[in-house]
Protein backbone atom coordinates (compact mmCIF):
# COMPACT_ATOMS: atom_id res chain seq x y z
CA UNK A 1 0.00 0.00 0.00
CA UNK A 2 1.46 3.34 -0.99
CA UNK A 3 0.59 6.96 -0.66
CA UNK A 4 0.00 8.54 -4.08
CA UNK A 5 3.29 9.92 -5.34
CA UNK A 6 2.02 13.46 -5.87
CA UNK A 7 0.61 13.87 -2.35
CA UNK A 8 2.42 16.65 -0.50
CA UNK A 9 2.91 16.20 3.24
CA UNK A 10 4.44 19.11 5.12
CA UNK A 11 6.35 18.97 8.38
CA UNK A 12 3.44 20.66 10.12
CA UNK A 13 1.09 17.82 9.16
CA UNK A 14 -0.63 19.56 6.27
CA UNK A 15 -1.55 17.07 3.54
CA UNK A 16 -2.42 18.31 0.04
CA UNK A 17 -3.85 16.16 -2.72
CA UNK A 18 -3.04 18.06 -5.96
CA UNK A 19 -5.33 15.84 -8.04
CA UNK A 20 -8.49 16.74 -6.14
CA UNK A 21 -7.40 20.02 -4.52
CA UNK A 22 -8.35 18.72 -1.07
CA UNK A 23 -6.20 19.39 1.95
CA UNK A 24 -6.16 17.86 5.42
CA UNK A 25 -4.44 18.28 8.76
CA UNK A 26 -3.04 15.26 10.53
CA UNK A 27 -1.44 14.88 13.93
CA UNK A 28 2.03 13.65 14.76
CA UNK A 29 1.03 9.96 14.84
CA UNK A 30 -0.76 10.20 11.47
CA UNK A 31 2.27 11.94 10.02
CA UNK A 32 4.55 9.15 11.18
CA UNK A 33 2.31 6.52 9.62
CA UNK A 34 2.14 8.44 6.33
CA UNK A 35 5.92 8.66 6.45
CA UNK A 36 6.16 4.87 6.82
CA UNK A 37 3.66 4.35 3.98
CA UNK A 38 5.67 6.70 1.80
CA UNK A 39 8.77 4.65 2.65
CA UNK A 40 6.86 1.58 1.41
CA UNK A 41 6.73 -0.20 4.81
CA UNK A 42 4.33 -3.12 5.14
CA UNK A 43 1.44 -3.06 7.67
CA UNK A 44 3.39 -5.56 9.81
CA UNK A 45 6.50 -3.37 9.81
CA UNK A 46 4.44 -0.29 10.65
CA UNK A 47 2.72 -2.13 13.51
CA UNK A 48 6.07 -3.25 14.85
CA UNK A 49 7.59 0.25 14.62
CA UNK A 50 4.60 2.00 16.17
CA UNK A 51 4.13 -0.47 19.03
CA UNK A 52 7.83 -0.06 19.84
CA UNK A 53 7.57 3.73 19.95
CA UNK A 54 4.17 4.00 21.63
CA UNK A 55 2.52 2.34 24.59
CA UNK A 56 -0.04 0.31 22.61
CA UNK A 57 -0.48 -3.41 21.92
CA UNK A 58 -0.43 -4.68 18.29
CA UNK A 59 -4.12 -5.67 18.20
CA UNK A 60 -5.31 -2.23 19.35
CA UNK A 61 -2.90 -0.46 17.02
CA UNK A 62 -4.04 -2.48 14.00
CA UNK A 63 -7.67 -1.55 14.69
CA UNK A 64 -6.79 2.16 14.56
CA UNK A 65 -4.35 1.62 11.71
CA UNK A 66 -6.93 0.01 9.40
CA UNK A 67 -9.46 2.70 10.29
CA UNK A 68 -6.87 5.27 9.28
CA UNK A 69 -6.12 3.41 6.02
CA UNK A 70 -9.86 3.31 5.19
CA UNK A 71 -9.98 7.05 5.69
CA UNK A 72 -6.96 7.57 3.40
CA UNK A 73 -8.63 5.40 0.79
CA UNK A 74 -11.88 7.33 1.06
CA UNK A 75 -9.95 10.58 0.59
CA UNK A 76 -8.23 9.14 -2.50
CA UNK A 77 -4.80 9.49 -1.00
CA UNK A 78 -3.72 5.91 -1.67
CA UNK A 79 -2.25 4.60 -4.87
CA UNK A 80 -4.63 1.67 -5.31
CA UNK A 81 -2.65 0.31 -8.26
CA UNK A 82 0.27 -0.41 -5.94
CA UNK A 83 -1.73 -2.00 -3.15
CA UNK A 84 -0.51 -5.33 -1.93
Amino acid at each position, binding site marked *: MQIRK*NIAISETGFV*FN*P*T*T*GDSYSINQVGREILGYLAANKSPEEITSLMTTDYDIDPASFEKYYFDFISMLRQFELLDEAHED
Partner: protein
Amino acid sequence: MKTKITVAITGLNNTDNPGPGVPVIRGIRDSGDFDVRIVGLAYENLEPGIFMPGVADKTYQVPYPSEGTNVLVQRILEIHKKDPIDVLIPNFDAELYAFMRSEKVLEEAGIKTFLPTLEQFEERHKSNLPEFGEKYDLLVPFSKPITRIDEIDKLKENFEYPLMVKGKFYDAYLAYNEEQVRMNYNKISAKWGLPVIIQEFIKGTEVNVVALGDGQGNTIGAVPMRKQYITDKGKAWSGITLDDPKLLDLTRKIIEATKWRGGMELELVKSSKNELFIIEINPRIPAWVYLAVGAGQNLPEALVKLALGEKVLPFTSYQVGKMFIRYSYDLITDLKEFEKLSTLGEL
Protein backbone atom coordinates in the same frame (compact mmCIF):
# COMPACT_ATOMS: atom_id res chain seq x y z
CA MET B 1 11.14 47.57 -25.45
CA LYS B 2 7.45 47.13 -24.83
CA THR B 3 4.94 47.36 -27.67
CA LYS B 4 2.31 50.04 -27.18
CA ILE B 5 -1.18 48.71 -27.76
CA THR B 6 -4.75 49.61 -26.92
CA VAL B 7 -7.02 46.78 -25.87
CA ALA B 8 -10.78 47.17 -25.52
CA ILE B 9 -12.41 44.87 -23.01
CA THR B 10 -15.93 44.11 -21.83
CA GLY B 11 -16.99 42.36 -18.63
CA LEU B 12 -16.07 45.03 -16.09
CA ASN B 13 -18.84 43.85 -13.77
CA ASN B 14 -16.68 42.69 -10.89
CA THR B 15 -19.70 41.84 -8.80
CA ASP B 16 -20.72 38.67 -6.94
CA ASN B 17 -21.40 37.26 -10.41
CA PRO B 18 -18.23 38.60 -11.96
CA GLY B 19 -17.41 39.12 -15.60
CA PRO B 20 -13.90 38.23 -16.72
CA GLY B 21 -12.94 41.80 -17.76
CA VAL B 22 -10.99 42.87 -14.68
CA PRO B 23 -8.86 39.70 -14.36
CA VAL B 24 -8.21 39.74 -18.12
CA ILE B 25 -7.02 43.34 -17.79
CA ARG B 26 -4.81 42.43 -14.83
CA GLY B 27 -3.21 39.66 -16.89
CA ILE B 28 -2.53 41.95 -19.84
CA ARG B 29 -1.16 44.66 -17.54
CA ASP B 30 1.23 42.07 -16.04
CA SER B 31 2.69 41.50 -19.50
CA GLY B 32 6.37 42.19 -19.91
CA ASP B 33 5.90 42.69 -23.66
CA PHE B 34 3.10 45.21 -23.84
CA ASP B 35 2.72 48.80 -22.74
CA VAL B 36 -1.03 48.61 -22.72
CA ARG B 37 -3.81 51.14 -22.68
CA ILE B 38 -7.12 49.68 -21.64
CA VAL B 39 -10.41 50.87 -23.06
CA GLY B 40 -13.23 49.52 -20.94
CA LEU B 41 -16.57 48.81 -22.61
CA ALA B 42 -19.43 48.87 -20.12
CA TYR B 43 -23.06 47.90 -20.53
CA GLU B 44 -24.12 49.20 -17.13
CA ASN B 45 -22.96 52.41 -15.50
CA LEU B 46 -22.28 50.78 -12.13
CA GLU B 47 -19.91 48.08 -13.29
CA PRO B 48 -17.16 48.28 -10.64
CA GLY B 49 -14.29 47.90 -13.15
CA ILE B 50 -15.16 51.33 -14.56
CA PHE B 51 -14.26 53.01 -11.28
CA MET B 52 -11.53 50.72 -9.97
CA PRO B 53 -8.13 52.42 -10.04
CA GLY B 54 -5.56 50.90 -12.40
CA VAL B 55 -8.10 48.89 -14.37
CA ALA B 56 -9.47 50.83 -17.37
CA ASP B 57 -7.72 53.97 -18.62
CA LYS B 58 -10.93 55.07 -20.29
CA THR B 59 -14.40 53.56 -20.32
CA TYR B 60 -17.20 53.90 -22.84
CA GLN B 61 -20.76 52.81 -22.46
CA VAL B 62 -21.98 50.44 -25.14
CA PRO B 63 -25.48 49.20 -25.99
CA TYR B 64 -26.55 45.68 -25.11
CA PRO B 65 -26.22 43.13 -27.92
CA SER B 66 -29.98 42.60 -27.63
CA GLU B 67 -30.41 46.03 -29.25
CA GLY B 68 -28.92 44.53 -32.40
CA THR B 69 -25.48 43.54 -33.64
CA ASN B 70 -25.29 46.55 -35.90
CA VAL B 71 -26.01 49.03 -33.10
CA LEU B 72 -23.31 47.51 -30.90
CA VAL B 73 -20.72 47.30 -33.67
CA GLN B 74 -21.44 50.85 -34.86
CA ARG B 75 -20.83 52.08 -31.33
CA ILE B 76 -17.51 50.18 -31.21
CA LEU B 77 -16.50 51.71 -34.54
CA GLU B 78 -17.49 55.17 -33.31
CA ILE B 79 -15.30 54.68 -30.22
CA HIS B 80 -12.50 53.35 -32.45
CA LYS B 81 -12.58 56.55 -34.53
CA LYS B 82 -11.73 58.77 -31.61
CA ASP B 83 -9.83 56.26 -29.50
CA PRO B 84 -8.19 53.70 -31.82
CA ILE B 85 -8.41 50.11 -30.62
CA ASP B 86 -5.84 47.46 -31.61
CA VAL B 87 -7.45 44.42 -30.01
CA LEU B 88 -10.97 43.77 -28.78
CA ILE B 89 -11.64 41.07 -26.18
CA PRO B 90 -15.34 40.41 -25.58
CA ASN B 91 -15.95 38.52 -22.35
CA PHE B 92 -19.63 37.62 -22.32
CA ASP B 93 -21.27 34.65 -24.01
CA ALA B 94 -24.26 36.80 -24.90
CA GLU B 95 -22.21 39.33 -26.90
CA LEU B 96 -19.91 36.86 -28.65
CA TYR B 97 -22.35 36.13 -31.44
CA ALA B 98 -22.45 39.80 -32.42
CA PHE B 99 -18.67 40.12 -32.41
CA MET B 100 -18.06 36.85 -34.24
CA ARG B 101 -20.46 37.91 -36.98
CA SER B 102 -18.72 41.28 -37.20
CA GLU B 103 -15.16 39.96 -37.13
CA LYS B 104 -14.47 41.04 -40.73
CA VAL B 105 -15.98 44.51 -40.31
CA LEU B 106 -13.89 45.02 -37.20
CA GLU B 107 -10.76 43.65 -38.87
CA GLU B 108 -11.22 45.99 -41.84
CA ALA B 109 -11.45 48.90 -39.42
CA GLY B 110 -8.19 47.75 -37.80
CA ILE B 111 -9.64 46.08 -34.72
CA LYS B 112 -8.29 42.59 -34.16
CA THR B 113 -10.11 39.84 -32.31
CA PHE B 114 -9.35 36.18 -31.60
CA LEU B 115 -12.69 34.46 -31.32
CA PRO B 116 -14.12 31.02 -31.94
CA THR B 117 -15.78 30.49 -35.31
CA LEU B 118 -19.57 30.56 -35.46
CA GLU B 119 -19.54 26.80 -36.04
CA GLN B 120 -17.38 26.20 -32.94
CA PHE B 121 -19.59 28.53 -30.93
CA GLU B 122 -22.80 26.82 -32.00
CA GLU B 123 -21.80 23.18 -31.70
CA ARG B 124 -20.64 23.45 -28.08
CA HIS B 125 -23.86 25.22 -27.07
CA LYS B 126 -25.57 23.75 -24.02
CA SER B 127 -28.52 22.70 -26.13
CA ASN B 128 -26.19 20.91 -28.60
CA LEU B 129 -23.98 19.24 -26.01
CA PRO B 130 -25.26 15.64 -26.56
CA GLU B 131 -24.44 15.86 -30.29
CA PHE B 132 -21.10 17.47 -29.43
CA GLY B 133 -20.29 14.57 -27.08
CA GLU B 134 -21.21 12.02 -29.72
CA LYS B 135 -19.25 13.75 -32.47
CA TYR B 136 -16.02 14.00 -30.47
CA ASP B 137 -16.46 10.85 -28.36
CA LEU B 138 -16.78 12.71 -25.05
CA LEU B 139 -18.82 11.95 -21.97
CA VAL B 140 -21.63 14.48 -21.56
CA PRO B 141 -24.76 14.33 -19.42
CA PHE B 142 -28.00 13.62 -21.25
CA SER B 143 -29.77 16.90 -21.91
CA LYS B 144 -32.79 18.21 -23.73
CA PRO B 145 -33.73 21.76 -24.69
CA ILE B 146 -37.36 22.64 -23.97
CA THR B 147 -39.34 25.61 -25.26
CA ARG B 148 -42.78 25.01 -23.73
CA ILE B 149 -43.80 24.69 -20.11
CA ASP B 150 -46.07 21.71 -20.87
CA GLU B 151 -42.94 19.72 -21.83
CA ILE B 152 -42.03 19.61 -18.15
CA ASP B 153 -44.71 17.00 -17.41
CA LYS B 154 -43.04 14.60 -19.85
CA LEU B 155 -39.51 15.00 -18.48
CA LYS B 156 -39.92 11.98 -16.21
CA GLU B 157 -39.93 9.79 -19.33
CA ASN B 158 -36.28 10.67 -19.99
CA PHE B 159 -34.90 11.96 -16.70
CA GLU B 160 -34.59 10.99 -13.08
CA TYR B 161 -34.82 13.63 -10.39
CA PRO B 162 -32.93 15.65 -9.35
CA LEU B 163 -32.03 17.29 -12.65
CA MET B 164 -30.42 20.54 -13.75
CA VAL B 165 -32.40 23.42 -15.26
CA LYS B 166 -30.13 25.74 -17.23
CA GLY B 167 -30.35 28.97 -19.18
CA LYS B 168 -28.91 29.04 -22.69
CA PHE B 169 -26.23 31.52 -21.63
CA TYR B 170 -26.15 31.58 -17.83
CA ASP B 171 -27.85 30.29 -14.69
CA ALA B 172 -28.24 26.72 -13.53
CA TYR B 173 -30.50 25.32 -10.84
CA LEU B 174 -30.90 21.89 -9.34
CA ALA B 175 -34.55 20.80 -9.28
CA TYR B 176 -35.92 17.92 -7.24
CA ASN B 177 -39.44 17.86 -8.66
CA GLU B 178 -41.64 19.19 -11.46
CA GLU B 179 -42.73 22.17 -9.42
CA GLN B 180 -39.13 23.30 -8.98
CA VAL B 181 -38.49 22.77 -12.72
CA ARG B 182 -41.49 25.01 -13.52
CA MET B 183 -40.33 27.71 -11.14
CA ASN B 184 -36.80 27.69 -12.58
CA TYR B 185 -38.07 27.45 -16.16
CA ASN B 186 -40.04 30.66 -15.65
CA LYS B 187 -37.18 32.42 -13.91
CA ILE B 188 -34.61 31.44 -16.56
CA SER B 189 -36.76 31.97 -19.65
CA ALA B 190 -37.74 35.46 -18.43
CA LYS B 191 -34.07 36.38 -18.10
CA TRP B 192 -32.30 34.54 -20.91
CA GLY B 193 -35.08 33.50 -23.27
CA LEU B 194 -35.64 30.06 -24.75
CA PRO B 195 -34.75 27.26 -24.94
CA VAL B 196 -34.27 26.24 -21.35
CA ILE B 197 -31.98 23.24 -21.09
CA ILE B 198 -32.82 20.26 -18.93
CA GLN B 199 -29.73 18.28 -18.06
CA GLU B 200 -29.07 15.01 -16.25
CA PHE B 201 -27.53 15.67 -12.84
CA ILE B 202 -24.13 14.02 -12.47
CA LYS B 203 -23.09 13.53 -8.88
CA GLY B 204 -19.44 14.20 -8.25
CA THR B 205 -16.79 16.87 -7.85
CA GLU B 206 -16.95 19.90 -10.09
CA VAL B 207 -13.68 20.87 -11.73
CA ASN B 208 -12.93 23.56 -14.28
CA VAL B 209 -10.24 24.19 -16.85
CA VAL B 210 -9.31 27.52 -18.42
CA ALA B 211 -7.66 27.00 -21.79
CA LEU B 212 -6.58 28.80 -24.93
CA GLY B 213 -6.60 27.27 -28.41
CA ASP B 214 -4.68 28.70 -31.35
CA GLY B 215 -7.30 27.75 -33.95
CA GLN B 216 -4.97 25.16 -35.50
CA GLY B 217 -5.67 22.44 -32.95
CA ASN B 218 -2.89 23.40 -30.53
CA THR B 219 -3.48 24.11 -26.86
CA ILE B 220 -1.49 27.22 -25.99
CA GLY B 221 -2.24 26.88 -22.30
CA ALA B 222 -4.54 25.08 -19.89
CA VAL B 223 -4.90 25.27 -16.12
CA PRO B 224 -7.33 23.09 -14.14
CA MET B 225 -8.94 24.39 -10.97
CA ARG B 226 -11.29 23.16 -8.30
CA LYS B 227 -13.65 25.59 -6.65
CA GLN B 228 -13.06 25.62 -2.90
CA TYR B 229 -15.68 28.12 -1.91
CA ILE B 230 -18.81 28.57 -4.00
CA THR B 231 -21.27 31.45 -3.77
CA ASP B 232 -25.02 31.01 -3.80
CA LYS B 233 -24.82 31.87 -7.51
CA GLY B 234 -22.51 28.90 -8.01
CA LYS B 235 -19.51 31.14 -8.66
CA ALA B 236 -16.04 30.35 -7.38
CA TRP B 237 -15.05 32.61 -4.51
CA SER B 238 -11.92 30.61 -3.96
CA GLY B 239 -10.15 27.96 -5.99
CA ILE B 240 -6.95 25.96 -6.29
CA THR B 241 -4.94 24.72 -9.26
CA LEU B 242 -4.83 20.95 -9.71
CA ASP B 243 -2.36 18.43 -11.00
CA ASP B 244 -4.56 16.11 -13.02
CA PRO B 245 -3.14 14.84 -16.33
CA LYS B 246 -6.56 13.41 -17.29
CA LEU B 247 -8.10 16.88 -17.22
CA LEU B 248 -5.33 18.28 -19.38
CA ASP B 249 -5.49 15.37 -21.82
CA LEU B 250 -9.23 15.89 -22.20
CA THR B 251 -8.75 19.62 -22.76
CA ARG B 252 -6.11 19.01 -25.43
CA LYS B 253 -8.34 16.42 -27.07
CA ILE B 254 -11.24 18.88 -27.32
CA ILE B 255 -9.08 21.74 -28.59
CA GLU B 256 -7.39 19.50 -31.13
CA ALA B 257 -10.64 17.96 -32.38
CA THR B 258 -12.52 21.25 -32.65
CA LYS B 259 -9.49 23.38 -33.64
CA TRP B 260 -10.74 25.75 -30.97
CA ARG B 261 -9.85 29.39 -31.51
CA GLY B 262 -9.63 31.64 -28.46
CA GLY B 263 -10.26 31.27 -24.77
CA MET B 264 -12.49 28.61 -23.28
CA GLU B 265 -13.62 27.28 -19.97
CA LEU B 266 -14.48 23.64 -19.53
CA GLU B 267 -16.88 22.84 -16.73
CA LEU B 268 -16.61 19.20 -15.77
CA VAL B 269 -17.84 16.82 -13.13
CA LYS B 270 -15.62 13.99 -11.98
CA SER B 271 -17.92 11.13 -11.02
CA SER B 272 -17.27 8.70 -8.19
CA LYS B 273 -15.92 6.30 -10.85
CA ASN B 274 -13.40 8.98 -11.87
CA GLU B 275 -15.17 9.58 -15.19
CA LEU B 276 -15.02 13.12 -16.54
CA PHE B 277 -18.36 14.47 -17.76
CA ILE B 278 -18.41 17.71 -19.71
CA ILE B 279 -21.15 19.86 -18.24
CA GLU B 280 -20.50 23.04 -20.22
CA ILE B 281 -18.00 24.56 -22.61
CA ASN B 282 -17.91 28.30 -22.22
CA PRO B 283 -16.55 30.02 -25.33
CA ARG B 284 -14.51 32.65 -23.52
CA ILE B 285 -12.03 33.21 -20.74
CA PRO B 286 -13.63 32.72 -17.29
CA ALA B 287 -13.62 35.23 -14.42
CA TRP B 288 -11.10 33.14 -12.46
CA VAL B 289 -8.45 33.42 -15.21
CA TYR B 290 -6.11 35.43 -12.99
CA LEU B 291 -5.44 32.21 -11.08
CA ALA B 292 -3.87 30.84 -14.27
CA VAL B 293 -1.79 34.03 -14.57
CA GLY B 294 -0.68 33.61 -10.96
CA ALA B 295 0.16 29.97 -11.60
CA GLY B 296 2.44 30.87 -14.51
CA GLN B 297 0.25 30.93 -17.60
CA ASN B 298 -0.65 34.45 -18.67
CA LEU B 299 -3.45 33.38 -20.99
CA PRO B 300 -4.90 36.90 -21.51
CA GLU B 301 -1.48 38.12 -22.71
CA ALA B 302 -1.19 35.08 -25.00
CA LEU B 303 -4.67 35.80 -26.36
CA VAL B 304 -3.65 39.36 -27.25
CA LYS B 305 -0.54 38.04 -29.01
CA LEU B 306 -2.61 35.56 -31.01
CA ALA B 307 -5.01 38.34 -31.96
CA LEU B 308 -2.06 40.42 -33.17
CA GLY B 309 -0.94 37.49 -35.32
CA GLU B 310 2.19 36.81 -33.27
CA LYS B 311 3.53 33.30 -32.88
CA VAL B 312 2.84 32.00 -29.39
CA LEU B 313 4.58 28.94 -28.02
CA PRO B 314 2.46 26.69 -25.80
CA PHE B 315 2.95 26.92 -22.05
CA THR B 316 4.51 23.74 -20.71
CA SER B 317 3.79 24.01 -16.99
CA TYR B 318 2.01 25.83 -14.20
CA GLN B 319 2.23 25.83 -10.44
CA VAL B 320 0.02 23.29 -8.70
CA GLY B 321 -1.56 24.32 -5.41
CA LYS B 322 -1.86 28.03 -6.32
CA MET B 323 -4.98 29.50 -4.82
CA PHE B 324 -7.17 32.50 -5.39
CA ILE B 325 -9.53 34.04 -2.89
CA ARG B 326 -11.93 36.75 -4.04
CA TYR B 327 -12.85 39.59 -1.79
CA SER B 328 -15.30 42.43 -1.73
CA TYR B 329 -14.18 45.99 -1.22
CA ASP B 330 -16.06 49.25 -0.91
CA LEU B 331 -14.77 51.59 -3.56
CA ILE B 332 -15.47 55.26 -2.86
CA THR B 333 -16.04 57.52 -5.82
CA ASP B 334 -17.66 60.89 -6.54
CA LEU B 335 -21.04 61.52 -8.01
CA LYS B 336 -19.25 63.57 -10.70
CA GLU B 337 -17.59 60.40 -12.07
CA PHE B 338 -20.89 58.59 -12.17
CA GLU B 339 -22.51 61.64 -13.74
CA LYS B 340 -19.90 61.79 -16.53
CA LEU B 341 -20.49 58.19 -17.51
CA SER B 342 -24.25 58.45 -17.22
CA THR B 343 -24.59 61.62 -19.27
CA LEU B 344 -21.65 61.52 -21.72
CA GLY B 345 -21.37 57.72 -22.03
CA GLU B 346 -17.70 57.82 -21.24
CA LEU B 347 -15.35 58.26 -18.33
